[in-house]
């Protein structure tokens, strides 16, 4: 019952009366932690279910809700890669990577101009950016399909990363404007006094300082491009050889039996995709959260 161990520094107020008050406070702390465990399970249990189900072979995945009942094996994972899933991964990786690069380059230029450079009609500009961010992607489907059909961009990487870039730009601009605005102005003024051109100031002084923000934006862009389904399913629905992305492949996985969704293959593919994503999310959680909240609190 050593008091110092359980009385966190964060709750010093409770200390004034010992005994009953303190144990009530401790009970409350534990109660809150127990509720936190609910959030924790909410977020992670389905993922645990996914892993266990993907490891069940033959019909075990469909037959029993008991997660620990085998037979277990890696057969599903072998099947997934026999169905060209590595090509889907390649397509998604390429499309998301190009989207990220384009968005970061174009978006950071625009965000810097909005945050720091003298620009007329900034409010109008930001309202326009906000309007684009509210834009329903499905409004693009008919016109872009016609256009891509005519100029041959259906089933190509370009056909996807071009719309992805323009759709993710608003969020990129909102996130990066926040980060650029937070950099002390004195640094730019010092650079200016030292004779740096405005462009040099941006490139040499501001950009390195904004690197964490740019990185956060890059992850968020990558995730949204990686997860996109509507346009991918419309503009590149089939053929992993060409441009079919991961979500489209997972949506239409076929199994040995026609009328049954192959639970093992689907869950295995899901695990292959989610593990790297979750690792990225956990590794950079602080930056991602800063980026997500900056982007939306602004926009």
């Amino acid at each position, binding site marked *: 019952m050593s008091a110092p161990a359980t009385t966190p520094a964060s709750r010093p107020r409770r200390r004034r009366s010992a005994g009953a008050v303190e144990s009530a406070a401790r009970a409350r702390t534990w109660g809150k932690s127990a509720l936190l465990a609910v959030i924790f399970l909410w977020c992670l249990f389905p993922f645990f279910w996914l892993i266990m189900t993907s490891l069940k072979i033959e019909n075990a995945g469909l037959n029993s809700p008991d997660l620990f009942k085998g037979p277990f094996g890696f057969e599903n994972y072998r099947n997934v890669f026999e169905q060209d899933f590595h090509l889907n991964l390649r397509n998604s990786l390429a499309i998301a990577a190009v989207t990220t690069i384009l968005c970061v380059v174009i978006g950071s230029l625009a965000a810097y101009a909005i945050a720091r450079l003298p620009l007329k009609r900034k409010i109008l500009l930001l309202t326009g950016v906000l309007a684009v961010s509210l834009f*329903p992607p499905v409004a693009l489907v008919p016109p872009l399909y016609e256009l891509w059909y005519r100029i041959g961009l259906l089933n190509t990487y370009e056909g996807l990363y071009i719309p992805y870039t323009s759709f993710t*730009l608003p969020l990129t601009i909102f996130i990066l404007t926040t980060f650029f605005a937070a950099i002390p102005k004195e640094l730019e003024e010092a650079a200016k006094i030292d004779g740096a051109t405005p462009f040099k100031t941006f490139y040499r002084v501001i950009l390195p300082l904004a690197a964490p923000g740019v990185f956060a934006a890059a992850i968020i862009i990558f995730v949204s491009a990686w997860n996109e389904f509507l346009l991918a399913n419309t503009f590149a629905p089939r053929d992993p050889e060409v441009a079919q992305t991961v979500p489209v492949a997972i949506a239409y996985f076929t199994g040995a039996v026609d009328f049954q969704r192959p639970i093992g293959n689907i869950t295995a593919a899901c695990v292959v995709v989610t593990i790297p994503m979750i690792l990225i999310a956990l590794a950079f959680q602080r930056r991602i959260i800063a980026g997500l909240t900056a982007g939306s609190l602004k926009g």
Partner: protein
Amino acid sequence: MAGTQATADTGALRAGPGRSRGVSETALGRLFVTPAILLMAAVALFPVIYAFVVSLRAYTGRQYEGFAGLDNYTEALQDDEFWASLEFTFVFTVTSVAAEFAIGLGFALLMNQAFRGRGVTRAAILVPWVIPTVIAAQMWFFMFNVNPGSVNALLGLGDFNWLGEAGWVKAVIIFADVWKTAPFVALLLLAGLQTIPTDIYESARVDGANALQRFWHITLPLLRPAILVALLFRTVEALRVYDLPQVMTGGAFETESLSMVVQQYVVLTPDPGLGSALSTITFVIILGVGVIFVSLLGRELTIGRTGR
């Protein structure tokens, strides 16, 4: 301004090579925003205008047949499928956003209070966000499905068929959406909660306000901007819903969303005129809802913060 004065004082620098080659700040500003504006206009603005033009034309298959006036719109508005999808989209939006808000607010309040395990929970909360919606759809489909019956086993429901009846299918789709996005709402609201200064709560407590009063009179009003932002983004996103019903039901059991109907007239049963009319209607509905929210938010968002 400050810059020009500084260079006037240090005349030597002005003659330096860097200075004379440099572009003025205003020109640079224009140069920097131009690519972003052009790209957003080309891929967002232009297609909407183009879709509107196409929606005024008649087609057979993909074959252009001449000007149609508003025929496509009357056809769309007389289409039962359109009204059914509109109803589903609205039901989905209202219920899922309400549930996400309630649960997200609960999560956020809790995370703002608790100390033990807060860091881990903050990390865990990103997991549903990072998982592709298509994967969430497949996952919850199987969990609710009779085989293997994971949800039924958990609730002791035997062989209850969640995916065999319109009402329950909708509930399952909404649940999957709530699972995926409530943590995200929590994240946004948590950021809002953390901007509320703690001394306001202290003085309210001194004045004898109980927890409920503090929540109602301090937390909620001060959280208003964050709440509106979260609701705005979630509502607009929910109105676009496509991934979940497309993967879980393919539109069966009255779960076809507006986006699915538009997509169908573009790819499966091509009719560019009708498809464009439907997409224009969808666009107007979603943008209209967005505009209502933005005007509610008023100046505090777009202008107040970026003015600096």
